[in-house]
């Protein structure tokens, strides 16, 4: 019974060691560090992090705000057919990320897309692939996939809000809006913050959506996100050592980020 444990433990060590020592170190003993500094000095690598940061600035308020708003609406006494709405909002999450990206790209393609028909019909015009609009097109795909998922998390948290508190506030004359903003949101704020942090950890690995969009929206380029940078470094530049160094730097950032997440989560659990 120890074998799978040792195997799992060994694999997780092995994975980290092999990537670090196996490729930064074994092949060229001291070239390891030079690769790191080369990658760090590469402006493309640094801008890829900047891209993810701008993405988060647009994506997180829309997605988390939307999910929170939806959860509050479904939780409110006025909502009907709560189960149906939860299912409808969650359904996009059953669609694999790649297929979601393909569907939305077709919905952005003139001639195919009913969305563009509607915009034209309303007298507007919109190019989803233009340099200025490609970021919002990407954010929309991600919002579509994740808003329902996070809404279900928030809704579960809202269900745990003690009903006496809300009853008391109602008796005191607070309206639905004031109860939502003044009582419900503060009570579930820990799950909101956790979701934000998990979303950031996910965003750092962003690959599918920008990769697919960049085929149509050329302005995004080959190395828009850190993972895209790593792939183009390895398979276009054929610089495996540099790609490995970039991977480990990304792993470091991602690891640090998730460490912060778990730390904050633990502190909340204790308090």
């Amino acid at each position, binding site marked *: 019974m120890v074998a799978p444990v040792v195997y*799992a*433990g060994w694999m*997780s060590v092995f*994975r980290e060691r092999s990537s670090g020592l196996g490729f930064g170190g074994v092949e060229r003993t001291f070239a390891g560090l030079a690769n790191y500094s080369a990658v760090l000095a590469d402006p493309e690598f640094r801008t890829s992090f900047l891209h993810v940061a701008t993405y988060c600035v647009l994506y997180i308020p829309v997605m988390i705000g939307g999910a929170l708003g939806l959860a509050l609406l479904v939780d409110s006494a006025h*909502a009907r057919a709560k189960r149906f709405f939860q299912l409808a909002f969650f359904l996009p999450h059953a669609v694999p990320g*790649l297929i979601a990206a393909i569907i939305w790209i077709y919905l952005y393609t003139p001639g*195919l897309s009913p969305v563009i028909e509607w915009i034209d019909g309303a007298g507007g015009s919109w190019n989803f692939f233009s340099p200025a609009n490609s970021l919002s097109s990407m954010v929309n795909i991600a919002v579509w996939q994740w808003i329902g998922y996070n809404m279900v998390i928030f809704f*579960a948290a809202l269900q745990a809000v003690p009903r006496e508190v809300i009853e008391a506030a109602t008796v005191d004359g607070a309206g639905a809006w004031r109860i939502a903003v003044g009582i419900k949101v503060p009570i579930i704020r820990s799950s909101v913050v956790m979701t934000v942090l998990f979303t950031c950890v996910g965003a750092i*690995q962003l690959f599918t959506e920008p990769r697919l969009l960049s085929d149509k929206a050329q302005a995004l380029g080959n190395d828009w996100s850190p993972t895209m940078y790593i792939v183009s470094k390895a398979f276009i530049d054929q610089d495996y050592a540099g790609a490995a160094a970039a991977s480990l730097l990304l792993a470091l950032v991602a690891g640090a980020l998730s460490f912060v997440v778990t730390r904050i989560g633990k502190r909340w659990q204790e308090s």
Partner: protein
Amino acid sequence: MSTQTLTSRTTERSTGTPPVPTTPSRPRAPRAWASKTAVNAVLIMLALYTLMPISWLLIAATKNRRDLFATGGFSFGEFNLLSNIHEVFTHNDGIYGRWLLNTVIYAVVGSAISSLISVAAGYAFDKYAFAGKEKLFGVVLAGVLVPGAVLTLPMYLLASKAGLTNTYWALLIPSLVNPFGVYLARVFSEGYVPYEVIEAARVDGAGEIRTFRKIALPMLAPGFMTLFLFSFTASWNNFYGALVMLNDKNLYPVNLGLHMWNISTTESPEMYSLAITGSLIAVIPLVIAFLCLQRFWRSGLTAGAVK
């Protein structure tokens, strides 16, 4: 408690009399009606947003190439769903069927084995004492912190050194070891399998492996299911790993194959209907599975959120 609240709320609303008699009752009822309409209208709009792309896919899959571009997105053309499906499965000697089969191997077989390993490891971490246990578990926790996608390229380099790229193993082996699964399985094992049961089995003369297989594993079944679902979704979504690891079209999972079809639409627009119908066929089993397994993902989600 919740039903109680519900009834008290409904009575309040249905009678229409506010708790404080001095407030006039007439202005309040229309306002409640208005906000009820507003709330449900917003919810319906958002449901339209979340359901629109899938319904468009459903309609687009019924059209032939000409109608796809000639008719409006949400109006039907000639009904060609069956011939589209036929074309998806016969194009390039039926490679799509092969991709579906590959996906089953990667996602179903891979997740089943990976969940089994996680459950066994978690169980061992929970129920056995061995030297360096907490240190080893620390390594597992460190593995949880670093998301798997980030290590895809190092994994590729390792696989190419071992000569495993472009084989089934290239995608299967990395998916087998899941640190988060081990962590979760330990929590499940703590919660589901009491020590007394294990002790009783030992006293009755069952060996360790038999105890695990016959006693602990059935008790861990719901945890196994949750892990399986997590791992299945991850495998389905693993476009990055497949893209990096595989070159041979015959080994592609369905998402990589669809990606290839999607890329070729820029040169040959007739590929659109293949890519659209192929996407639909790939999505439907997942949507059905999600609807059927609601109970499990709900518990999995909240477990993840509470953690």
